[in-house]
């Protein structure tokens, strides 16, 4: 069925324009003349640094905690598995500000866990770098877990069984047989998780607040700069866009090279 359908193409073009136009507009309105000055400002550099630190830490947490979790979901059957899986993937669809409120209720100073942390150890989480990492990690981890789980589940058991008959133990099997073969899934999951962590706003501003140099990430800086110096906001926005494009391109290149 090779006939081109004009209607299908027309609708497709509308869709593409819808997605592309705002991005094109962003790039078009950037005040290139002020680019250097804005990027050199301490506020911009601070926000960028905070964003990088928070998003990378959130990614590491997502990978370290998420890999065993994905493994268990993919390979073990146990009571309540279905429910736990739903819970683990829920932050993906939860409105970010709702996530922020939930984090406050758990880790805030009057939170279920937070109150004890303050009482026993004097540890306060909201408004700290840790809070920003928790907020970003909370919304980003499910993206990694979902992708990793799909990778583990789709890997034929035969490879691990063969490795076992060769006398190779569990950990070495995982490192040298499983991981290399699911690497594309893990990479894709990590890329999406990182991008999500980088762009996190609602949960961050609610739970971690807006402390310059500590929790003021790029998205927060963009939001607030919009009311102070819109052109600065455009520049920061375009930087975020550029980073997102690079992450996407990098992930695709990695996937294709395998």
């Amino acid at each position, binding site marked *: 069925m090779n006939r081109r359908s004009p209607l299908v193409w027309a609708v497709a073009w509308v869709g593409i324009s819808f997605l592309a136009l705002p991005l094109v507009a962003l790039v078009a309105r950037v005040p290139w003349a002020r680019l250097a000055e804005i990027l050199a400002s301490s506020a911009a550099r601070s926000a960028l640094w905070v964003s990088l630190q928070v998003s990378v830490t959130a990614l590491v947490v997502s990978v370290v905690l998420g890999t065993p979790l994905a493994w268990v979901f993919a390979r073990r059957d146990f009571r309540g598995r279905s429910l736990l899986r739903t819970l683990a993937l829920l932050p993906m669809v939860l409105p970010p500000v709702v996530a922020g409120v939930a984090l406050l209720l758990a880790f805030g100073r009057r939170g279920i866990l937070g109150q004890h942390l303050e009482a026993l150890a004097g540890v306060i989480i909201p408004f700290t770098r840790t809070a920003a990492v928790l907020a970003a990690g909370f919304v980003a981890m499910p993206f990694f877990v979902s992708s990793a789980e799909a990778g583990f589940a789709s890997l034929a058991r035969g490879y691990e069984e063969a490795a*076992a008959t060769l006398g190779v133990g569990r950990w070495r099997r995982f490192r040298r047989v499983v991981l290399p073969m699911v690497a594309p899934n893990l990479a894709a999951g990590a890329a999406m998780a990182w991008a999500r962590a980088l762009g996190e706003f609602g949960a961050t501003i609610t739970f971690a607040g807006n402390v310059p140099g500590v929790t003021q990430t790029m998205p927060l800086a963009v939001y607030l700069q919009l009311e102070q110096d819109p052109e600065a906001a455009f520049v920061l926005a375009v930087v975020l866009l550029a980073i997102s494009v690079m992450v996407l391109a990098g992930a695709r290149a990695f996937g294709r090279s395998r």
Partner: protein
Amino acid sequence: MSLSVDVAVRRPGFDLEATFEVASGQVVAVAGPNGAGKTTLLRAITGLERVERGRVVVGDITVFDSSAGIDLETERRGVGMVFQGYWLFPHMTVAENVAFAARGPAGRWIEGLGLGDLADRYPSELSGGEAQRAALARALAAAPRALLLDEPLAALDVETRRQVRSELARHLAAVDVPVVLVTHDPLDAALLADWMLILENGRVTHSGTLTEVTRRPRTPWAARLAGVNLYRGEGIGKGIVIEGVMLAVPEPVDGPALAAIAPSAVALHEERPAGSPRNVWRGEVVGIEPAGSRLRVSVRGDLDIVAEVTTEAAETLRLRESAEVWVAVKASEIETYPA
């Protein structure tokens, strides 16, 4: 170092019980129809399948004993396995695959199995026969104390199968640990193994050498084995001499050799046939038995042979006991193996 197996595996709708012992250097074939439980048996020995009750001893180490609560993990049993799907690691070259769990330098296994030119290739670039050799090399390099092969030739096309079978026979002869080989092809059982077990519906129905098993087959499947024409003779290049009869063969062979002819490859004629077959002799029909939808015809002659023909063909040839027939076998249908 021997392998002693006594297992009972229970699964919904299926149960398997088997007891046998394989001595060092012996190759035992576990043959039988599909679904008999052959693969399950191998998986039970390696610990990949849950065993209800039983005992498995590899050399002097008990790897499984249900009454003593011993159940070693697969990686600690020292039982190597070549799977039907080979499962070569796709992200490693052949050399890396073989070296992966090798005890000692992998080079001798790569060379020994003729993989030298393929060492830097990836599994996706190998043919069926090459992949099988690579899987075997990988398993042997890990110095197993027993070796299991699950349908080693099943994934190959008919042409490759013959060549690989003879190579495999050579390699297995050089292995000095107990070998268990699973197959549904009677020819594999006949030519690769020292003795065999026939497994049907989860139970061992026959046990012994080919001759012993086929002397009095108790089940239809065993009877199929009986139909394999197997001869011992002397190879002299392009031919093999068996009991004074010279048969032309496709592959040169020298010295003591085995020749196998599948019953379905034997053509029967009323008169001496003209044309291509070079292996022709005269004989007398001494028995006709039904074999599924066909007939198995035993012929005595310069060489005794069993042919498998359709009932229509039998009618046309007016086959009956004591009838005179001419036997013709194309050279290309004869498989030879160094004995």
